[in-house]
Structures are given as C-alpha cells and as structure tokens.
C-alpha cells in the first residue's frame, strides 16, 4: 500500500493535570482523508490526546501540555488558537447542540459565533447542503426552526457533526461520539463516517474494539498515556507488534 499523505503530525506531546502526567511523548502521524481510531482502556489518555490537538485541554484549570502539533506542516503553536480550532473541528461525547438556538441556527453556529455574516440565500444553501451531508435534511426539514435540543439524541449528535463540518475544517475530532447513543443511532453515525472521510480527515476516539475495527483505516493504541502502537487497522488487529496491544486485543484488560 502506498504511503498516505499526512494531515496532522504530533511530536512528543506530553500533558499534565496539575502534577499528574497523563500523556508521555506521544508522536503520531495522522493520514489525510482516513479514519484514524484512537483506542485503549479507560484513563489511557485518549480524550486528553485529542483535546491537546485543538487546545481544549488547556481550558481545564491546572492543565498543561508540551510538544508540537503540525497541521499540514504548520506548527499550530505559531497560529492563533481560534484559527487552529477552525481547522480542527470537534464532536463531543454527549450531543451538545446550543439549547438557545434553533436547528437552523445550530448548523450555522460556527459562523455566528465567529462573527461571520452570511446572506440569507447563502445561509439557506449551507444549511440544506450540510444537513444533507449528515443525512438529517429529510428528517428535520420541517423542524428547522425548532430548538436544536428538541431532536432525538442521535439527531442531536448529527446536528453537532453538521455544525462542525459547516466550518469546513481539515480535521474532525470525534471524542467517543456514540457512547451516549442507542445502537441504531450509532450505526447511522458509523455509516456517515465513510462518506465524511472523502472530505475530512477523521480522528475518532472509541472505547470499543469492535467499533475501531468497523470504522477505522488506521488505529492508534494508547495505554497509560503512551502511544503503544500505530498502524493500519487490519495489520494491527491481525498481527499486533507490541505485547500490550496483543493482550488488549485478546481481552486481557478492559
């Protein structure tokens, strides 16, 4: 298989909460237009890792980090954090549409929040196109001006995906986005990923092995804050090179 193009590279990322170090020298190269799953047992630093990529980690009081994140070759520490977040979108564990905004407004929330004005026509166009992309258009067409929180959990999560990709980011971080959803909604979102990766590079934190196997092209296995193994999903699942990966895959720890 040919070498993939790299969209995002981390070099020796370390992260702390107060005195507790939670990430140790994590260096990873995330391929463009692929789904990269971040997996590992609870508390292994998966979520912290993706939160260091868009600087949300530092929003927690007492949190620190070090190391370099290169986004398409540019060191993100030289960029304004607001710009970094425009290029690296994020979908959270629990659906978090803005409760004071309608479905329509939620799709355009990124524009409104960053003070970008859109003409009515352009706005309508974006909303329809983006909702189509996440498969919500036919479902919510009649509810566009109801509160975003009036949708079902699965629909809310797709609405959050919609508002994220409406900003045309290069990379989208998914932090266990299906862990609060029922199996059917989970399946819809998993299916959606294979469409989305044509346009975006996806980093997907998951707790479940099966989910990682189903959805990802590449997989990063974390344990106790270390990146233990990184590679094509098939290769890692069939022939893990590290003993710890092998133990995890065979179910030796949670």
């Amino acid at each position, binding site marked *: 298989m040919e070498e993939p193009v790299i969209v995002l590279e981390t070099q020796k990322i370390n992260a702390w909460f107060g005195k507790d170090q939670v990430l140790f020298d994590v260096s990873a190269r995330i391929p463009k237009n692929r789904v990269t799953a971040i997996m590992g047992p609870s508390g292994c630093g998966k979520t912290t890792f993706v939160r260091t990529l*868009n600087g*949300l980690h530092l*929003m927690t*009081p007492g949190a620190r980090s070090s190391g370099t994140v290169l986004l398409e070759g540019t060191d993100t520490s030289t960029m304004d954090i*607001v*710009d970094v*977040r*425009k290029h690296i*979108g*994020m979908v*959270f564990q*629990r659906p*978090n549409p*803005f*409760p*004071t*905004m309608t479905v329509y407004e939620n799709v355009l*929330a*990124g524009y*409104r*929040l*960053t*003070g970008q004005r859109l003409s009515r026509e352009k706005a309508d166009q974006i909303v329809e196109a983006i909702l189509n992309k996440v498969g919500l258009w036919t479902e919510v067409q009649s509810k566009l001006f109801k509160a975003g929180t009036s949708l079902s959990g699965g629909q809310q999560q797709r609405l*959050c995906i919609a*508002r*994220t990709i409406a*900003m045309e980011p290069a990379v989208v971080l998914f932090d266990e986005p299906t862990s609060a959803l029922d199996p059917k909604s989970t399946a819809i979102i998993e299916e959606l990923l294979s469409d989305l990766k044509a346009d975006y590079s996806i980093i997907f934190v998951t707790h479940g092995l099966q989910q990682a196997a189903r959805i990802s092209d590449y997989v990063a296995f974390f344990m106790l804050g270390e990146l233990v193994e990184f590679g094509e999903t098939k290769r890692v699942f069939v022939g893990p090179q590290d003993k710890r990966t092998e133990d995890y895959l065979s179910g030796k720890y949670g």
Partner: protein
Amino acid sequence: MVAQPSRSDRREAARERAFTAASLVAAVTLVATIVLFLVQLFITSRTSRAAFGLPFLWHSEWNPVTEKFGALPMIVGTLVTGFGALLISTPFALGIAIFLADYAGRKVAEPVKYLISLLGGLPSVIFGLWGLFVLVPIIGKFEVWFGKLVGSKALVASGTTGVGLLAAIVLLAIMILPFSASLILEALLVVPTELKEGALALGATKWDTIQNVELPYVRRSTVGALVLALGRALGETMAVTMVIGNGMKMPTSLFDPANTLASAIANQFLEATSPIYIGSLIQLALILFVIAIIINVLARVILRRGIQQ
C-alpha cells in the same frame, strides 16, 4: 397486649407523631402570621379608605395639617428610585458576574465573591450613613454644577443640599449590586462546560462564547435576579429614609427631595397622631406589601420557567 411492636418501636412512632405535629404547628403559625398581618393592616387602614377611597392611589396631595392624604408622590418615588437603581446597577452586576465567572482565576474570584456577600449582608443603616455624609455632598455639588450647565437658577439656589431622589437612586444601586451580581454569577456558573467547549471548538473566542452561548442560556435567570433585586430596592427603608429628604410634594426633577412608600412611613409614623393620618400611613404599607408580593411572584415565575428551559 400483643408483644410484636417492641418498646423502642413504639417510642419511635410516638416521636414521629410528635415531630409531625410540632412542624405542622410551626408551618400553620407562619401562614397564620402572614394572613393576620394582612388582615390587621387592612382593618387599621380603614379610616383612610373611608375618607379617600380608591382615589388615594392617584391623589398627589399629602397634607397632615388639612388631613388630606394621597399616595401618588410616594408611589412615584418608590418606582423611580427602584427602577433608576436597577438601571444603574444592572450593567455593573453583569460585568462583575461575567468577570468572576469567565475571566478571573480562582485566586481572584473566591475572595471577591466573599466580599460581595459581605457587602450584601451589611446593615442598611451603614449604607445610609455613608450616603448621608459622603454621597449626598457629592450629589449636592453635582447638582449645582448641573444647574449652572443647563442654566437653571432653581437648581443652583436650592440644590446645595444633595438629598433627594438621585441620592436615593445611587445609594440603592450600590445596595442591590451585590445581590444581583451574585445571583447572575450563580446562573453563569451552571452553564454546562460542554456548551462552552462546543462553542470554543468551533473557533469562537471567549467573548463570542459569552455573548452567544452563556448569556442567552442565563437570560431568564438574569431577568429573575434583576426582578428580585428590584424588589429589594422598592422595599429598602432605612438607607433611603436617610438620604431622600422626606419631601411630600410630587417630585418634578431627580434632584427633588421626595419619599418612597417605605421612607414616608419611617419618616412620619412618630408624628402621626390622628386616626386618619395613621390609617393613611398604614394604607401606604398595604400598597408596598402588594407591590412586594407582585414582584416576588413575578420573579419566581420567571425563575421557574428558566429552570424548566
């Protein structure tokens, strides 16, 4: 006697009944106090109602010598000082709350929060004293300056005292500030982190997030907090009495000495000797009571809807 319920069981049950009865009595006493209170106010103010009837509410003459009484100047004074204070203090309250919730670190926010609650618990006579000896002279000077500015001889001539509506408004604004600021702060602190992070992750700055996510989220609780603060301002007695100047005429400018419902009662209850004078003062109390109830119910309704949302 059947032996099944042991002695300690029976003692337990008896205690249970005793506590239930005791707390029931306490609760009934509270309700009865309020009801009796209202009834008593209503009965003792009947002399005034018999003499003036409903027009008491919109007559603007208050003359103990001729025993003609009308409540309008005091109603106006109450509303003007209350809303004026709210108008001045609201931007500060919002600013303080936003700063403490989103900008100040914990090391700054904690002591400031403590200071705010300290300020809120300060006896109002202290505010009144400060108002009389510090604020009033400043307002007196301002009054003269303003009189010269707009060319009003009346202000320059009469206005050196500084007591009046404006002094009461400024003092009330300061007094209700800790109250509304801490209520708004509490509301801001419960905005879910996931919503703030959701906005930040879309490339919003902190201020974008405050404006478009946090403030809309706490809109209802903020309005509720402000209405509660208004209620405080409308009923505040001691401090207002000390700086408002006990003017019984209908105020025509913010510099005029005036009275609120509460300050009129406090200022005059000692002089009131005739039944009709007393009745009229108690009638003022009834009006204030009703306004206070309306404001509190309103705030509660707004706040409850805020929580359901």
